[in-house]
């Protein structure tokens, strides 16, 4: 998911080779009315644009087509022909009924509120910690930084489900190492209890995404011109001051990006609660988060029409939330 967004981002920002700004104006310098439809510049532009074809094809096949199919699915309703349900099913056009039902579905919006509150804590926490790590790495020697970079990125390479399993064993009050660890300080911590489940999942989320976010911010820090640091040092600025007043403003655009990715990921929270459900079933119900409810509707209840309608609503919410945050954070960018 995040990879896709990134691709999109890169493509949108990179100028297409062969079509420099002003290219059109220059081709217009030939005598009026005799501009050939297909001159070498157009050809070059097309050639350049064609480089985006692999991306566009993948994007169409794996994003646009499924979205179209989902939209189609969401305006129908499937019902049994009655009786015991052994006689097959009929599909009928339902218009916006599924969306109307989704907009007033209490459990769906409760789940939405739940992940929203969770995001309010987890997203800033991830950004602040990642930024701190990136600044520390930036201050370290290059060789040392390279080693830490890999180590910090490791959790991101672990598939989410595997990471969750690993942490469930760490959290285990019976065989895990964490409970005895906290006992040393006289604390009785049960990571499986209902009251701790958000902390348990939040810690897991931060652990999983820290490395990736840090890497993007670290990359951005590398592109800050070093002359500025030198000038600042000559003016007597401390390292802390340089970090806060020069480095952080410089990576602002990257912070916006990582925050957005983090918000999108958090609103779609799925695999962690799904696994933690076994541990605290009295807290994590089958419709705990919007994504879990969509999964339940599609593959358990078997109501694919309603599930796709809910997916569309979730996508809209994520889109709107991203747009608002983008505007909000990006407002004062120089």
């Amino acid at each position, binding site marked *: 998911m995040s990879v896709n967004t990134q691709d999109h981002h890169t493509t949108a920002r990179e100028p297409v080779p062969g079509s420099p700004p002003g290219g059109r104006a220059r081709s217009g310098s030939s005598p009026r009315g005799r501009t050939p439809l297909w001159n070498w510049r157009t050809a070059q532009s097309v050639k350049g644009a064609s480089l985006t074809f692999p991306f566009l094809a993948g994007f169409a096949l794996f994003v646009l087509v499924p979205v179209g199919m989902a939209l189609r699915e969401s305006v129908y309703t499937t*019902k*049994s*022909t*009655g*009786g*015991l*349900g*052994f006689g*097959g099913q009929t599909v009928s056009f339902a218009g916006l009924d599924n969306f109307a039902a989704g907009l007033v579905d209490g459990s769906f919006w409760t789940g939405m509120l739940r992940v929203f509150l969770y995001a309010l804590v987890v997203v800033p926490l991830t950004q602040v910690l990642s930024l701190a790590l990136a600044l520390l790495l930036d201050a370290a020697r290059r060789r040392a930084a390279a080693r830490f970079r890999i180590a910090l990125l490791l959790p991101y390479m672990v598939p989410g489900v595997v990471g969750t399993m690993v942490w*469930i*064993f760490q959290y*285990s*009050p*019976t*065989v*895990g190492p964490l409970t005895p660890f906290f006992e040393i300080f006289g604390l009785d911590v049960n990571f*499986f209890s*209902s009251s701790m489940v958000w902390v348990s999942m939040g810690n897991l989320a931060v652990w999983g995404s820290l490395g990736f976010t840090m890497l993007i911010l670290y990359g951005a820090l590398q592109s800050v011109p070093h002359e500025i640091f030198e000038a600042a040092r000559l003016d007597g600025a401390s390292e802390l001051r340089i970090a806060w007043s020069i480095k952080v403003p410089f990576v602002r655009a990257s912070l916006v990006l990582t925050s957005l990715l983090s918000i999108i990921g958090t609103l779609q929270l799925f695999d962690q609660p799904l*696994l933690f*459900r*076994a*541990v*605290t*079933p*009295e807290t994590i*119900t*089958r419709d705990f988060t919007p994504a879990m409810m969509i999964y*339940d509707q599609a*593959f*358990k*209840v*078997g*109501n694919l029409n309603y599930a796709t309608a809910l997916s569309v609503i979730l996508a809209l919410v994520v889109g709107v939330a991203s747009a608002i945050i983008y505007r909000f954070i990006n407002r004062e960018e120089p």
Partner: protein
Amino acid sequence: MMRSRARWATAGLAVTALTGLTACSSTGASAGPAEAEGPVTIEIWGWNAETGEQIVDAFNEAQDDVEVKYVLQASNVATQTNFQNAMEAGSGVPCLVQGFAPLTTMVVNGWAQDITEQVEGSADLYNEGALAAAQVDGRYYGLPSGSDGQFYIVNQKTFDKYDVEVPTTWDEFVDAGRELKPHGVDITNLAGEDPSSLMNLAQQAGAEWFAIDGDQWVVNFTDDGTLAAADVFQQLIDEDLVSNQTYMDKPALLKYFDSGKMASVTTQWWSLGGYQVGFTDSAGDWSAHPIPQFADAAAPVTPGRTAPSFVPEGCEEPDAVMAYTDWLTTPEAVEAGRNAETGAIGFPTQIQDPAPYVEEVIPKDFFADEKAAGEEIVAAQETVIGKFELGPNYDAWFPELQDQWGKAVAGKITLEEAMTAVEEFVASDLESKGISYTVAE
């Protein structure tokens, strides 16, 4: 190979079905589409990575009429996904699919075909529970499948240490829990995510969550049987006589089971292997007993359910499938299913008398008395109920039952409230699916 074929012939099994099949392929008089020369080829889908293929190979060698191809699927879920896709596409539909959901679900979705004719032809190979499990509304939509009868294993050392009698009824079971509690011992474990203990006990108590009345379903999650089962668990929960360890944290679970702090558990034959590996301290302390009964039961009954394999709509060779299924009841087939690494066989719970094989499924050095344990396992199989109708929308309501069970086990609501909530969910789901139903008074 000759010898095995001879043995197969002398066993005299599967003759009925194969006669029909041979007639079909040799005379060409029947309407079967594969009446040309050569064997009928069928495809089987399942997720038995250990022995699925070798069983099929043995079958192919044992006879020349049917050629089976085993298509290994990654998992239960993968089987369902791929199967749904094949049905949707209308091509590449296999002839036999391992049961990935309860049989009624397969019928409601229009996936399983009616194979009453085939199954009735060889009904005498199977036990009653296996035949009962293969039916929906009086017709066979599934292949006879063994339900693994539940029995009761106790940590005899713990029981002896605190001088507690092994319970034979569920009331005694609760009493034993009360006696063990002061010693810091739980009578059993109820995992919050797994309501199957409740389903089993309800089945044993004669509960009928779904019944068919003419053209509609009668839904009843609060009948006498269910409430009797719920009452047993409610006492255990209220008096804190059980633990709630999750299966997700398996190392912790096994460690606790092995610690002597959990006195007993109901189980089935295939769990024993895992227990043998996980129980290092308590090995040899365990004994097997019949599952406790309800005091008012007329005759002993054993809970046990299964999800039978089925023949999909669109398969044109149900006779060949039946021939293969019948062959699975032979000693040769059981032997073919022996795991090369562990040496374990699959216990053929679908056949009339699985007793000759029971010794093979008893783990070594686990039970204090292995012979007695074997007898209990066979006895459990003799009285297994097999059928527990789960209705047309099991996939939809099972997660709801999980949610409600989890809350009840944590003491947030009572089990009766939980079952009422599940019943309401079932009703509203059937309503939205357009299936006729009535909720019993």
